[in-house]
């Protein structure tokens, strides 16, 4: 419990974590605002009759940038090396002399990041769906009982994405590369999406499978994966990665 409190305190006192939280709420909400007003324009022009079934959800799929930052800096901050003039120290030495059990330390980190990501996902989903409702008004797709499992899917997807980013960074011990690759993959160059054009197997990559938990229609994709299967596939990826990360972390020199 103390270890968990210490990890929460670490996260809360890191400026980049606040940037991550702000990005987590703003990115999907703002994009949802822009696309919703474009949709509204199309509907009033008569080019479209209805807002799509994935309105809001699509934006929440892209909005994981916040939890990616969270997962990466949650561990890369431990390995950030001070300048040589300041003595070249790293926080991880302080962390592991305060909490010598590596497994306990890692579990506390994983828990804090998972809880924070879940809270962030709930907040982001509420604001994003709120923006959609406000902009589209009565033309917005009605939120009903069907949306409960989909929104749970969004929360799972965000938590898992944060843990994937975390697990990769435990292995690299450096934040820049995982941050750049993972953010690019959700926005500029969606490598995993492009791979699905080459092989249907790419649909089982963690992010492609994970979005099935709440996205109903993927553009130009005929592979059917149920929300449950998608969730299980992503769970498997995350579990395997975290186990590998834990083995590496407990065995290597800090």
């Amino acid at each position, binding site marked *: 419990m*103390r270890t968990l409190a210490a990890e929460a305190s670490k996260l809360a006192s890191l400026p980049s974590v606040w940037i991550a939280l702000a990005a987590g709420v703003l990115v999907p909400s703002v994009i949802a605002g822009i696309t919703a007003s474009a949709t509204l324009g199309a509907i009033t022009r008569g080019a479209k009759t209805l807002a799509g079934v994935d309105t809001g959800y699509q934006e929440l799929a892209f909005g994981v940038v916040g939890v990616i930052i969270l997962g990466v800096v949650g561990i890369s901050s431990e390995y950030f090396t*001070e300048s040589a003039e300041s003595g070249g120290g*790293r926080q991880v*030495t*302080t962390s*592991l002399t*305060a909490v*010598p059990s590596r497994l306990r330390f890692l579990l506390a980190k994983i828990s804090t990041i998972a809880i924070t990501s879940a809270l962030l996902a709930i907040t982001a989903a509420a604001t994003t769906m709120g923006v959609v409702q406000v902009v589209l008004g009565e033309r917005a797709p009605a939120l009903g009982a069907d949306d409960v499992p989909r929104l749970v899917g969004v929360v799972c997807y965000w938590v898992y994405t944060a843990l994937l980013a975390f697990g990769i960074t435990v292995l690299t011990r450096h934040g820049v590369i995982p941050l750049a690759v993972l953010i690019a993959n959700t926005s500029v160059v969606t490598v995993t999406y492009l791979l699905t054009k080459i092989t249907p197997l790419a649909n089982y990559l963690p992010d492609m499978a994970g979005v099935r938990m709440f996205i109903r229609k993927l553009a130009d994709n005929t592979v059917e994966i149920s929300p449950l299967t998608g969730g299980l596939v992503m769970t498997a990826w995350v579990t395997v990665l975290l186990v590998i990360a834990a083995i590496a972390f407990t065995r290597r020199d800090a």
Partner: protein
Amino acid sequence: MITIENLVKRRGSKEILTGISFQGRPGRVTGFLGPNGAGKSSTLRILLGLDRATSGTALIGSVPFVWLPDPLRTVGAMLDGSGAHRARTGQAHLRWVARSAGLPRARVDEVLEIVGLTNAASKRVGSYSMGMGRRLGLATALLGDPEILILDEPVNGLDPDGIRWMRTFLRERAASGRTVLLSSHLMGELAETVDDVVIINEGKVMADGTLDEVTGSYRTLEDAFFALTTGGSL
């Protein structure tokens, strides 16, 4: 009591430590001295459970550091730099460490006062000078008011005032019956601080004894050190 026995550390094909043994006793300041790259930090990192020894043991009391039920209240450690993330304030850094050991918040203010950082407590660690960073590192080590202090190059980066302060401080800790183990490559600064001396070079202990024993027939500890580390014998 710190007991290091036959510590061997290999990295790749290189043997960094080739059977290090020595003790740090309560009520005494033990100086672990050697040139840069001699294996001082590696030894301390193994003692603190940060690195794994290829063979040999390093014990705090009778157990390895990682088995201590309440490490922060038993051992205070300071390694390179401040050991804090530069974006955090000094106070925020101490608070999370205190939280990990269930120490009260008031203790954070106490240690800031002890090391003279009260006024810089709400500044980011990135804006600290090296000396301030070292003080923060020491404040972290002191949080749990531990029986044992393990300090890697504690006077590095300190100004003359700071060095003098550190000396007095460590002498007082030892006088109250606690164990202090410090490493350094600076001999002159330490002759007045340490009771026992362990000299290490290229991963081997070259001399181990009281300050007088190690200084022996040489004029100063520094002379003894250079004689021992550049091929001479005691």
